[in-house]
């Protein structure tokens, strides 16, 4: 098993330090907000990568967990007026519950059932939010959430700390015996089963971990936007996350996180393109699929640091 090398660790320290200092140096509330969104997307992308990147079971409805976490935060704030800090653990629990409901019937099976079921589940949740508008606020969603931390800069640092913790935990899991098993499942599921590995258990467990971080990210997003709305469940959110993972390099966890940050910053630059933005995204994805099937960031980092290892 590959151990974390000094060069990887120092690279991580430099990137985190840059991210932590950037808002202080630029000193603009707008930019701090953009960075907060970047970091939340990075949590989503890293969590997607842990399940789907390692086991190769592509999840086309990650927004189901993101939306579940965000709406949990929304309900806690608007229906029960709970302390905003309760929403983080509750969002994790709800997202995990959702992952078990979808994971149990679909992950036992091979083939494309999981991808289809996740896509359908998130699309149907979005419809349900509109249909049961009396409870979910319909098109406008729920608003009036309280911020977790008043100062935007401090909140940014808090979210960044969660990202660092998430990437560290997920990387540690991916480097462990457990991650090796997940990668083995991606390689050949039948052989793993024949070797006596409970394949279904590992797939479902990795989905719950992935969902837990996605739900946490959803709640963080809700407390940043101070409102939640049905587009959080949309396929567009899922596909955005998947594109970020692809750009970062699937299966590497740190790559997708950086890919998310890079692409979100790029999106800000493209803001003037307005409705053409998604086209740019789609085009990026097509180009990457054809020319860089292994992604951009993680392979680049490996190539750059090859000689120091």
């Amino acid at each position: 098993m590959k151990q974390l090398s000094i060069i990887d660790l120092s690279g991580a320290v430099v990137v985190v330090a840059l991210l932590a200092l950037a808002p202080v140096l630029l000193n603009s509330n707008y930019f701090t907000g953009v960075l907060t969104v970047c970091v939340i997307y990075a949590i989503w992308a890293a969590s997607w990568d842990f399940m789907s990147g390692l086991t190769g079971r592509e999840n086309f409805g990650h927004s189901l967990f993101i939306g579940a976490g965000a709406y949990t935060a929304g309900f806690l704030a608007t229906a029960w007026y709970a302390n905003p800090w309760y929403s983080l653990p509750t969002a994790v629990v709800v997202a995990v519950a959702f992952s078990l409901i979808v994971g149990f019937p679909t992950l036992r099976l091979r083939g494309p059932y999981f991808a289809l079921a996740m896509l359908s589940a998130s699309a149907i949740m979005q419809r349900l939010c509109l249909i049961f508008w009396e409870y979910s606020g319909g098109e406008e969603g729920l608003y009036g959430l309280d911020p977790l931390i008043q100062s935007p800069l401090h909140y940014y640092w808090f979210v960044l700390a969660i990202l660092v913790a998430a990437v560290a935990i997920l990387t540690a899991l991916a480097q462990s015996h457990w991650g090796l098993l997940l990668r083995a499942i991606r390689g050949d599921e039948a052989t793993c089963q024949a070797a006596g590995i409970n394949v279904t258990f590992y797939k479902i467990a990795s989905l719950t971990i992935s969902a837990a971080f996605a739900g946490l990210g959803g709640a963080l997003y809700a407390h940043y936007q101070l409102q939640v709305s049905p587009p959080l469940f949309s396929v567009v959110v899922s596909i955005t996350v998947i594109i970020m993972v692809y750009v970062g390099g699937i299966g590497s966890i740190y790559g997708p996180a950086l890919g998310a940050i890079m692409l979100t910053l790029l999106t800000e630059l493209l803001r003037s393109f307005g409705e053409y933005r998604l086209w740019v995204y789609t085009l990026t994805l097509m180009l990457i699929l054809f020319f860089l099937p292994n992604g951009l960031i993680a392979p680049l980092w490996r190539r750059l640091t090859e000689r120091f290892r």
Partner: protein
Amino acid sequence: MLEILIYGAVSSAIYAMLAVGFTLIFGVARILNLAHGAFYALGAYAAYVFTGLLHWPLFIAAPLAVLFVALFGVLMERFLVRPLRYSQLAVLMITLSVSLAVEQGLFITFGSEYRNVPSFVAEKISIGGVDIGGQRLLALIAGVLVLLLLWLFIQRTRLGAAILAVSQDPEAAQYMGIPTNRIFSVVMAISAGTAALAGVLVSPFLTVQPTMGLLPMVKAFAIVIVGGLGSIPGSILAALLLGYSETIVAYLISSSWTELVSLVAVVTTLMIKPSGLLGRRAAF
């Protein structure tokens, strides 16, 4: 009672048209086409452009719309999907990005507001005391006809036999001299064409807007999973089941609950009989 019978048949026919194309391209080429809903939306918009904007007569506009989408599907398969067929995930990603690109393209060209397509058949027809729009009846009849023709085509023609052969074993079919890649193109054209026809037929009585493809595609997934991935009779059977149970739920409870029907159907199928009603073994 009769109302449920007729309206259920109409929505079943439309679901069946969507699901059969989706299951056909999966069964033959192993392409899980997430752009299937985009074909449906493109068909509806083509009908809108030809009849609503250009005022062409129906018998020209409808076939042209179907042909246009079929061509689009063939080009997509040839240039975007085929180079990536080595990986199932890459195929999923590319078809999904095509569907997003189409949705955004429609949004940019036509805006997000609802578009109206003039009715092809204006009269209302009364069957046993139930008034039903002629347009819905047309959709039902056309749907049944198309499925029947498709069945005859696959069972009775040489090309149909080739399609069957490829679906059973692409490699062996190639050894027998069947041009597999050309078969994929044909099947893609049929699949895209039936989805587009469904879009054309529903365009006068459903709302035409850029995101209209997503939910029918989710329904098509549900039907295909319930019927068995790759099985045409299975998806027709499941389309009838889903079409009728949605209509019954809409009449007995409320139309907002219909979305749940497909979700419940998928979850129960996957729990009890994951291969679907008529699993992959009985391919056609």
